[in-house]
């Protein structure tokens, strides 16, 4: 009970901070929106043998992008907390460290979920206004109900990556480096922006190692009905990935403090 209260407290703090930092909400929406419109409108080539237009194709990828940016932020916030000293305040409290990581993770996942949902609703709105955009995306309540838990799962996994990296690093600068050298490539290699079937063999191998690929593919299957990877497979990979990432993050966080 005490530990649940602690998880809730840490989560609550993340929520208040998120609510206070309105610029952050906008900033992390900007990139995905630019991708959707500028990139999506620029390249109009149909995908999957002409069955889906490009904007529909990248829509799930862009949602994953929004989830990634927001979730990685929880890694940054761990480093911030350490630098601002608030981390010590949490660590010296009579609660287990696991509760603190879980609270932080859930906080990060919740913010990611909100951002992802905003993009989802945006796609829905545009589709209604301009039918040539996102014509292949099936958006209705039942899709949303499947997309929602998928987004939670994906966010938690990426939050796990963020917290693990933050536990291994000392500075925000180091985190920026990792962001550019690991996280961005993870996104670009995930097949979010192009179908992985067309890739040369050697890149495709990397693509299959990248967990983000499975995140994009599972969402894509639910949203547009096509995917290069079987849904059951991609869902299972995401499930295992998220579960192990949270375990790793908890372990590393605990060891660090």
């Amino acid at each position, binding site marked *: 009970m*005490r530990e649940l*209260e602690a998880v809730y*407290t840490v989560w609550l703090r993340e929520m*208040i901070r998120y609510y206070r930092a309105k610029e952050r909400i906008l900033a992390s929406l900007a990139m995905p929106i630019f991708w959707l419109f500028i990139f999506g409108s620029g390249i109009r080539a149909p995908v999957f043998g002409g069955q889906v237009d490009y904007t529909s194709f990248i829509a799930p990828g862009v949602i994953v992008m929004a989830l990634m940016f927001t979730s990685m932020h929880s890694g940054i916030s761990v480093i911030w907390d350490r630098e*601002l*000293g608030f981390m*010590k305040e*949490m660590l010296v409290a*009579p609660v287990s460290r696991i509760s603190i990581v879980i609270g932080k993770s859930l906080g990060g996942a919740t913010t990611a979920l909100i951002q992802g949902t905003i993009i989802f609703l945006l796609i829905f709105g545009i589709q209604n206004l301009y039918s040539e955009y996102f014509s292949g995306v099936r958006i209705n309540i039942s899709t949303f109900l499947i997309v929602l838990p998928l987004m939670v799962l994906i966010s938690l996994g990426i939050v796990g990556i963020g917290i693990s990296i933050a536990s291994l690093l000392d500075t925000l600068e180091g985190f920026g480096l990792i962001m550019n050298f690991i996280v961005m490539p993870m996104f670009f290699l995930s097949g979010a922006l192009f179908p992985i079937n067309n890739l040369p063999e050697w890149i495709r191998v990397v693509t299959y190692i990248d967990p983000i690929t499975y995140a994009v593919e599972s969402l894509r299957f639910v949203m547009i009905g096509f995917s290069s990877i079987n849904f059951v497979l991609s869902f299972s990979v995401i499930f295992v990935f998220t579960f192990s990432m949270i375990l790793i993050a908890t372990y590393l966080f605990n060891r660090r403090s």
Partner: protein
Amino acid sequence: MITKTFACPECNTQISCQGNLGDKIKVVCPKCGKKGVAIFAVDKADLKTKTDSLSIEVAGLTKIYKNLKAVNNLSFNVRTGEIFGFLGPNGAGKTTTINMLCTLMKPTSGGAIVCNYDIIKHSLEVRKCIGLVFQDASLDDRLTARENLELHSRLYGVQKSERRKRIDEVLELVELSARADSIVRTFSGGMQRRLEIARGLIHYPKVLFLDEPTLGLDPQTRKHVWDYILKLKKEYKITIMMTTHYMEEADELCDRVAIIDHGKIIALGTPKKLKDNLGGDTIILDIPDDDVEKARKVFKKAKIFDSQVLLSVKNAGREIKKVLEKAKKNKIYVIEANIRKPTLNDVFLHLTGREIREGAANLRDELKRRRGMRGH
């Protein structure tokens, strides 16, 4: 009965045994079989006041970083209801000690009992009954004062019905009620420090640790914080252990002071007793380097550091004339003569030959040590 935990001097195994203050109990190490005696008294003052209850008991506490003994075999007791000061220069091991007592860090060897709980075995229980004000800021500056206190009381399991009352109460105590709903970012350094003290009190801790509570504050605000600390002792009867490198602070606030240097306690007692041990006032003569040898011969009892001659006398005002005449007769040129009533800094100087607030040369050593300490 008190449980004591300490490390076997032979094989470093943790040994626990029970006894009462003043007891000497024979102990045999379960691992290597070495025989020894556990002594349940740390300083003589404690023997006198056997009936006092103790809030903190430290025995053989040691922390070794890679190549540095940050805290070296510390043993001391803190009595319930007193303000106990830890005075020493930066890098002496004060914060490391506090971190170990607060269970944020594991000791390399030795142990301590805080509020009757072992800091190693029952860290959660210890954390429940202590409050802590860190040396550096530890507030969430994007939250309001009230939100910060709210989060803290939730983390410490303060009942919902109690929360509001206690938050208002501690805000009142540090005179921040009017700013309760302002974002902490907009607070001055002094206000933030006061808020941190308030926060440390919400869960009604039995022992409050203050790590350099007035570091970086202007003199006026410092005085203000001192008033709060004294108020806490008086109104809440809380045991306070504080670290500081301001000797006036230790002098003004603390019932007893431990002077610590290079991880070791070099003196412990009431500020008055420590100063009295110096034997009265000090006359300080600044002399040219060339005269140092001469001075050594003339003032045999004096302590001489660099080009300063320190003479301990009963009454400096009366004796300074004699001292100056003696210097003149022996052709020692006195650039400047000063009289100083003893301070805790003199106690430190007397014991170590250094000032508490270090000069440039020592700063360099200090930085070097810190760099080494950070390790990987």
